[in-house]
C-alpha cells in the first residue's frame, strides 16, 4: 500500500534512488561516460561475473543471428561464399539484394500453404498436450497406491532421446510390417496407412508429438498444483462447491502463472519441432506434413547449391512470426492482470 501511494508523487526520484542510492539525482547532468565509469567501479564484480555469459551468448546466439539477418538480404549460396579448400580458393561473389528473398517467399503459395498447416499443427498439438497433461497431473496429484511408479512411468518419454522415440514410432507405424497394423489385423481391422495417406500422416505426427510433449506439461502442472494451498479446496467444499466448480474456480486460476508459461514455451517448441516431422515422414507423403522449418530445410539444404540466403530469409520470417506471437500473447495475459 505504502509503495503504491508514494510512487505517483516522485517517480523519477524513486527510480533513480533505487539504482543510484541517493545523491545521484544531482549528478544527472554529468556526461554518460562518467556514470558508466562510476557504475563499473561500484559494481565491477557483478560485471565480471556477467561478462563470460554475455560473451558466450553473444558468440553462439548473437553472432549467428546477426549473420543470418545479413545473409537473408544477399544472394549468398554454397557456390559463391568465400572459402579455401586445399588447392582451391573460391572468392566471395555474392551481393546484397535487399528484400528480394522475402518478396519471393511471400509471393510463393508454398509459404502460405505451409504456414496454414504449421498453425494447425501447433494449435492442435499444444491444446491436446495441455489438456492431457492437465488431466494426468490432476489424477496424479491425489494420494493413491503406486503414485510414484505412475509418475516415473509417465516421465519416461522425456527420458528417451527424441530421435530414438521417433524412430521407434516409425517402426510402429509401418503400414506393412508395423506393430500397430498387426494388432489391428488381429482385431479384424484393415491396415491403416499411417504415414502414407496425407490426412493419416498428419494425425500420426500430431500423436507422436503429443506423446513426446505430455511429460513436460505433466511435470510443470503437477508442480503448479502442489503450490495451490489445500485450504482453498477445504473452504470451497464447506461452501458446497461441486468438484467441477472447484476445478474451474480454484485449480485453473491457481495454475495460471504456470500454464501461461508452459503454453508459450510449448507453442514455440512445437512451431519449430523439426525432428518429429523430419524423422517420421520427411515431410511426406509429398509435402503434406511439411511445417515451415522442415520446408525451409528442404528448400535450402537439399537443393544444390545450398541456398544460404533463402534459408536465412525463411529463418528470419519464422523468428518474426514467433516474436509477433509472443508479443500478442503477453499483451493478452497482461490484460487479464498477469504481470510477466
Amino acid at each position, binding site marked *: 500500500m505504502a509503495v503504491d501511494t508514494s510512487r505517483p508523487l516522485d517517480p523519477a526520484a524513486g527510480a533513480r534512488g533505487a539504482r543510484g542510492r541517493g545523491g545521484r539525482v544531482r549528478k544527472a547532468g554529468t556526461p554518460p561516460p562518467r556514470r558508466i565509469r562510476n557504475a563499473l567501479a561500484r559494481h565491477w564484480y557483478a560485471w565480471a561475473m556477467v561478462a563470460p555469459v554475455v560473451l558466450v551468448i553473444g558468440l553462439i546466439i548473437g553472432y549467428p543471428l546477426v549473420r543470418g539477418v545479413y545473409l537473408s538480404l544477399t544472394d549468398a549460396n554454397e*557456390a559463391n561464399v568465400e572459402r579455401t579448400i586445399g588447392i582451391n580458393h573460391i572468392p566471395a561473389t555474392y551481393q546484397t539484394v535487399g528484400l528480394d528473398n522475402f518478396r519471393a517467399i511471400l509471393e510463393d503459395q508454398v509459404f502460405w500453404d505451409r504456414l496454414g498447416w504449421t498453425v494447425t499443427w501447433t494449435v492442435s498439438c499444444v491444446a491436446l498436450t495441455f489438456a492431457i497433461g492437465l488431466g494426468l497431473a490432476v489424477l496424479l496429484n491425489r494420494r493413491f497406491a503406486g503414485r510414484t511408479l505412475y509418475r516415473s512411468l509417465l516421465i519416461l518419454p522425456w527420458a528417451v532421446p527424441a530421435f530414438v522415440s521417433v524412430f521407434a514410432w516409425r517402426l510402429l507405424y509401418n503400414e506393412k510390417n508395423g506393430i500397430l497394423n498387426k494388432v489391428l489385423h488381429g482385431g479384424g481391422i484393415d491396415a491403416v496407412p499411417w504415414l502414407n495417406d496425407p490426412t493419416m500422416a498428419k494425425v500420426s505426427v500430431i500423436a507422436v508429438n503429443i506423446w513426446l510433449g505430455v511429460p513436460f506439461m505433466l511435470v510443470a502442472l503437477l508442480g503448479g498444483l502442489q503450490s495451490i494451498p489445500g485450504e482453498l479446496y477445504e473452504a470451497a467444499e464447506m461452501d458446497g462447491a461441486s468438484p467441477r466448480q472447484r476445478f474451474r474456480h480454484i485449480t485453473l486460476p491457481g495454475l495460471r502463472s504456470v500454464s501461461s508459461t508452459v503454453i508459450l514455451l510449448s507453442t514455440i517448441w512445437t512451431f519449430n519441432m523439426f525432428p518429429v516431422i523430419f524423422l517420421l515422414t520427411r515431410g511426406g507423403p509429398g509435402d503434406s506434413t511439411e511445417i515451415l522449418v522442415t520446408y525451409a530445410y528442404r528448400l535450402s539444404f537439399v537443393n544444390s547449391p545450398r541456398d544460404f540466403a533463402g534459408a536465412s530469409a525463411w529463418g528470419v520470417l519464422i523468428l518474426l512470426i514467433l516474436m509477433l506471437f509472443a508479443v500478442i500473447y503477453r499483451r493478452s495475459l497482461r490484460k487479464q492482470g498477469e504481470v510477466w
Partner: protein
Amino acid sequence: MRRGIAATALVAAMALAATACGGDDGGSGDKKSGGHLSGTVTYWDTSNDAEKGTYKELALGFEKKHPDVKVNYVNVPFGDALAKFKNAAGSGGSGAPDVLRTEVAWTQDLANIGYLAPLDGTPALADQSDYLPKALAGAKFKGKTYAVPQVIDTLGLFYNKKMLKDAGVQPPKDWTELKAAAKKIKEKTGKTGLYLRGDDAYWYLPFIYGEGGDLLDTGAKKVTIDDEPGIKAFAAARDLVTSKAAETDATDGWDNMQNAIKNGDVAMTINGPWAIEDTLAGKAFKDKSNLGVVPVPAGSKGRGAPQGGQNLTVYAGSKNLDASYAFAQYMSSAEVQAKTTEKLSLLPTRTSVYSNKTVAANPNVKFFKAAVDKAVERPWIPEGNSLFQAILVQFPGVLAGKTSPEKAANAVGDAYRKLLKGDWK
C-alpha cells in the same frame, strides 16, 4: 646466465613440441623419392549393408600394396552422405574424407562448389581409355574430369521366376503386359504383381523415358517434364497403383520393397544391380536361379532406364593428395572391379574387365551390360541431383490418385524453372 639457459631450454622444448605436433597428424604423407606413399587415407563408402563387407575388405587391401598408408574405412549411409560431406567440406574441411564414393549426379554438384580435386593428369586417371565412354561422361564437368568411375548401373525388372511360372505368365515387356500379368498373379497366387517405389523419384524415370520424354533438354536449355510425355509418365505410374497391379509406400519404400520381394509377397520389383546381393538373401531366393532380370517394361514410345553408378572423387582439401589419387585408382582398378562383380554382381566401368572369365559368365552382368549400353544418360549439370526433389513432392500424391498427372507435371516444371538459374525456358 642461469636464467638464459632456462629460457633457451624452454624455447627448445616448445619448438620440439610444436614440430612433434605438426609431424604427427598422420595426414602429411609427403611423397618421398621413388613415389613412396605414406600417411592416412580416409575413405567414405556409401555401399549398402549387403555390399559393405566386401568393400571394406577391398579398401583395406590397399594397405598391402602400400604398407605405410593406413586406410580409414568409414561406411556412411547413402542417403546422408552428400549432406554430411558438404557439412564437413564446407566448414574448413575438418572431418571430411580424402576419398568419397559419389553417386554420379553428385559429381558435377560437388565439382561446381569447388570441393573436388580435378583428376586429369593424376595417377587416379592413369588409364582413361579403358573406361566406358558413358561412365566417363558422368565424371566430367566443364571440360575437366573430377571423378573415377567405379561402378555403372541402371534399372531392370527383377522377378520371381517361380511366381510368374505359377501364374502362367511371361516376364512383361511393357506396362500393359505388366498390368495383365499382375492380374493373373493376383488370381493364381493372391500376391501383388509389382512393388513400385513411391518415395524415390529415380523410379519415375523409366516411365518418362518410356513415353519418349526427359526431365530437361540440356541442349536447348528447356524444361521438358511438363510436356506430354511427362504427364503420360505420371499417368502410367498412377494407373499401375490404382489398378492394384502395383503397391507402393510414401515412406520406408526401400525396406518395404526389399521385404516384399525377399519374402515372396510380390512377384516383381524395379531395381538395379546394387540390390541383387540383398534380394538373393531373401527366403524366396534360396535357390538363387529363381531371380530373373529383364529390361524395365516399355512405355508407349519404347524402353528406357536411367544411367546411374558410383564414382570415386578426391576431396580438394585432402592433406594427402598423392595417396588419395593412388587409392582412387586402386578402388577402380581392374582387379578390384573384377572382385566386386564376382561377389556382388556389380557392373565394371572398365572395358578390360568384361573379358574376365568370371565376369563374362555372370548372367546378371550379361544382362545389365546390355541394359547399360542402352541406358539414358542423365543431365550432367550441378543441379542434376536436386531435380529429384520436386518429383518426390508430387509422386506420392499421384500414385495415391489424389493429384492429377497434369497438375503434378506442371508443378514439377515450375519448380525446375525456379531451381535452374540462368536462361532456362
